């Protein structure tokens, strides 16, 4: 539904976007992931015609955004929740949007209800809104015209965990009804929670794209033997499990949370089964995607790569 082909944007000598191509399909939430300044926002701004591309073309449903009649009815856009007049109330902002798109005023109340902004909150002026409330209002504004496509820049920014869960439900439901969603984030956790597919971008270039499984699979194939996948396991006899794994050439250590093995979970399970060790818990370490993200963007991160990588495990998230 969204097709971006060979998009390039230069500012003088600086190349903000370098031959970016991707596609977003209906029924899917596509996450656009990359560190700050990677080109996510520039791409989205070109998509909706606020910035001109140096070369390449971006189309939505086969059309240039600028050619869409009354585009708010087709594409819901939220680029910056703060880009609204601070002196207007939330309700007034939605009313202006509804007026502009030619929608009945009842739509304003429906949207306020959808994003859980109460009647009192909706009559407050925007400058008194928290970031989370601004994001909710921005999402309400994007959904006003009942569009088929949503383009959201950092929509989860400023939302609390409950808010992020709410948005995941909202966007999943929207995609299940056939909608197309492109949302950006610099936080892997957010995208991982919300998106079905991911596009990784760094320094204006697309680094990888696909769904979570295929991203990890392609990495495993590309980096076979280098680091591989890792697994944690707990059994009734952890010491023996470690010994058995080492026998098979799988590095393993016993830690407070069980056995950490640098092998696929299927290998660990098989080793345990063959030696009759009872496994209580067996799972692939979920840090895989984060490692991939950091690996792919390592030379594009602002922080010098001499920094040690963040610790793995459930607490190792980038929040």
């Amino acid at each position, binding site marked *: *539904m969204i*097709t971006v082909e060979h998009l390039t944007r230069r500012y003088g000598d600086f190349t903000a976007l370098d031959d970016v191509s991707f*596609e977003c*399909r*209906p029924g899917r939430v596509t996450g656009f992931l990359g560190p700050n300044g990677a080109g996510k926002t520039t791409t989205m*701004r070109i998509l*909706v*015609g*606020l*910035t*001109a591309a140096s070369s390449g073309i971006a189309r*939505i*449903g*086969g*059309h240039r*955004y*600028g050619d*869409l*009649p*009354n*585009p*708010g*009815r*087709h594409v819901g*856009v939220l*680029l*910056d929740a*703060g*880009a*609204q*007049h*601070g*002196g*207007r109330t939330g309700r*007034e902002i939605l009313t*202006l*949007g509804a*007026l*502009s*798109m*030619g929608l009945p005023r009842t739509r304003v109340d429906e949207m306020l209800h959808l994003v859980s902004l109460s009647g009192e909150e909706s009559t407050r*002026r925007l400058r008194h809104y928290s970031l989370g409330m601004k994001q909710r209002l921005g999402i309400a*504004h994007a959904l006003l015209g009942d569009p*088929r*496509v949503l383009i959201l820049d950092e929509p989860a920014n400023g939302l609390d965990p409950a808010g992020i869960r709410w948005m995941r439900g909202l966007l999943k439901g929207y995609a299940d009804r056939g909608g*197309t969603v492109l949302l950006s984030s610099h936080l892997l956790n957010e995208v991982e929670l919300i998106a079905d597919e991911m596009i990784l971008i760094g320094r204006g270039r697309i680094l990888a794209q696909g769904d979570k499984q295929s991203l990890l699979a392609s990495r495993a194939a590309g980096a076979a033997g280098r680091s591989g996948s890792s697994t944690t396991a707990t059994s009734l006899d952890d010491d023996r499990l470690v010994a058995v794994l080492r026998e098979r050439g799988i590095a393993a250590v016993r830690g407070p949370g069980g056995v950490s093995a640098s092998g696929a979970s299927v290998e660990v399970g098989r080793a345990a089964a063959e030696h009759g060790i009872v496994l209580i818990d067996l799972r692939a370490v979920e840090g895989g995607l984060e490692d991939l993200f950091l690996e792919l963007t390592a030379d594009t991160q602002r922080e010098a790569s001499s920094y040690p990588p963040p610790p793995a495990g459930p607490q190792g998230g980038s929040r």
Partner: protein
Amino acid sequence: MSSTHPTLDLGATEATPLSRLVQVELRKAVDTVASFWLVAAIAVLIVIVEGGLLLVVLLQDGESSAGDYAFFASYITAVVLPVLAIMLVTSEWTQRTAMVTFALEPRRGRVLLAKYLTGIVLTLVAVLVAVVVGLGCALVCQVVQPDLTTFDLGWRFLGGFVITQVLAMSLGFALACLLLNTPAAIVVFVAYRVIPVSVFGVLAVSFETFADVRPWIDFEYAQGPLYDLSVSGSEWGQLLTAGALWLGLPLVLGVLRILRAEVK
């Protein structure tokens, strides 16, 4: 890339009509705290000035016409109208709402046209208010001292007022497009109306030959005959050349700037 590209069906959607864009811009012009107080301040000022004027006329048994009162009311609004026109454009950039506005109507020229038409509507409303205030004050005088009062509005003057106000509003609009910053546009607007006309005045006195050139390049001077609608002959040409220089040029440059700008 997959072979099937889902498309958006645009058949049932019509482009946003210009009238609706004007409606939106009119609402935006008056729905913020700042614009509310601006309008409220004008209203209070008009009440004070007209009330004072009425008091003086009645106490001194002076002659007055509806046109006199309308003149003062329109003079007050005249100060504020260009500021409103400036804010119509600049607030989109200082408050960053241009991102939303141009996302909802990517044909930026139409948004600008709607804003300009909104400026004209506001000008006409201001004149209408002046006429109503003028007639209202004249009515009071009529009751108290019927012999000294006329309801003559001075239509020639009002007509000239509408035209010069639209020009002033256009200038504010043009400078706003060019500078995209409220205080800068207001300062330049005021300087624009005071400095060139003074410089040209001095030059015209100092150099006799310049006195012949002046009407062709001095926009304020060229607008002189417009105030009572007494423009004739070569004065039309002078309005055109001076207007092109002082109004046309910044307007074209300003509009081009907005059409091409990266909206942030």
